């Protein structure tokens, strides 16, 4: 029997600091890298929920790839999980057409009322289980980096796992 194969994507919403935010950090802390780095990770406002996110992704698919891209990208398309507190989510797409969704996430710069954000796809996997394990280990490493001394912070940040798989 032939299975329906899908791809799962772990993504996070990054908030690159604006000029005012960055200046405030550097002035207040006499230039320390940690708060500026942590600025990228923020709580997403509650008005960005699952429904808004799916709507925005489909709208961007239509904009970048037209009707054909929207049709292909949205077969088996499903937002499995999204957390506002960690700004992290998991998407499910068809194995054959997931590149359209991946490229759309890359190109998106706004979600609803949120502007100037980067949607950073961290990992693509064939099973949701492996993706969840990766997400847990990644958030563990981030928490460990936060709790450690400032001297070791940058080293700890660099040890946060990234997707080693070259093929997408």
């Amino acid at each position, binding site marked *: 029997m032939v299975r329906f194969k899908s791809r799962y994507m772990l993504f996070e919403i990054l908030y690159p*600091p604006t*000029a005012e935010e960055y200046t405030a950090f550097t002035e207040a802390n006499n230039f320390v890298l940690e708060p500026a780095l942590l600025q990228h990770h923020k709580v997403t406002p509650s008005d960005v929920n699952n429904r808004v996110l799916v709507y925005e992704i489909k709208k961007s698919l239509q904009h970048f790839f037209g009707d054909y891209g929207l049709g292909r990208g949205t077969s088996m398309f499903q937002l499995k999980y999204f957390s506002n507190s960690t700004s992290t989510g998991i998407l499910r797409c068809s194995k054959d057409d997931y590149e359209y969704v991946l490229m759309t996430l890359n190109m998106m710069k706004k979600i609803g009322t949120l502007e100037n954000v*980067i949607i950073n*796809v961290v990992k693509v996997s064939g099973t949701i289980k492996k993706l969840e394990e990766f997400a847990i280990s990644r958030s563990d490493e981030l928490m460990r980096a936060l709790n450690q001394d400032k001297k070791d912070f940058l080293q700890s*940040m660099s040890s946060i796992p990234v997707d080693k798989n070259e093929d997408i």
Partner: protein
Amino acid sequence: MLCDLNVPFPTEISSSSINQLERVLITLIELKYTHVAINKQLTPNMYQNQSAGGQKNKNGNTNQSNKSEYDLKDDLNKFFECFHKLVQKFGASLKLFARCTVEVNEPSKIGGVFIAMNGGIQNANGVTNKFDLISVLPLSEKGLIYLTSNSKGDVDILTFDYSNYFNGFHLKHKTMNSLAKKGIKIELVYSPLFCSSQQAIKFIANSKQVIRTCRNGTNSVLVSSGATSNLHVRNKLGVHTMLKFLGLKSHIYSRMMNENPGLALLNGRLRLKSYQQVVTSGSDVVNGVSGIENEREVNGFAVRSSNKRTRDELETDKTADGEDINHKKLK
């Protein structure tokens, strides 16, 4: 090792422009980049009729022409001053390199700009700062032909302005292959894709042309951001996706991100720290680790011998122990 060899340095130095550059660097750290080059771009108006290295004319006086309008040496010294400050700030998490891009429009007016850039820029304290990477941005076909015919190992990277159509020149297989054989890498700059839809269209048209003429760019193309804003940089997976949409296969685009930028950095490092790119010192040339093993001097050059032991050394080991090592194992 994840490289981004093109982060533009602002044309006018001010607190806001440096702030913007620092924000790009912060986002690159967040996206796990490790090696970043800060790019100082020189337009033809900047270097024509100037003496960047402070060369002296026949009368023995320093060339003062056009100094009231623009002083290239002063500008480059300011660049290196800012660059060293950035190295102090971000050195813990990023390895920063200085890069110079020379826009070439009319080859006859280049003068000694490449010799000056390779020789280094001396500041007021007498310290000579050198660029780790030197690249060329041709503005016309003449500029490109100059690079194929005249460059003698003084250029590492060939780049293009991807946000505008290549006006007046058409790329050819022969030209690009001759550059690839010389070891010059061709750069794809992806930030126009994320700027505006008009720039994205031009980027896709131009990059397809470059990839076609470089025969899919297996050995010769590298990818960098060229981002002036922190919203225009993407992580490794994002760049891979973009290159896949340009029609490249996985083994090619992974090479464009990992190995080819490393080779360009190696080329730049060898230009500075070797004799005719053959003899150099140090165990890790790209990362610049200073640990030198088995170094000895031959005719005034530092030569590092390989870890393979010579037959004489092995024989002395045998005689010292009194027994053969293999014989010991048999026992």
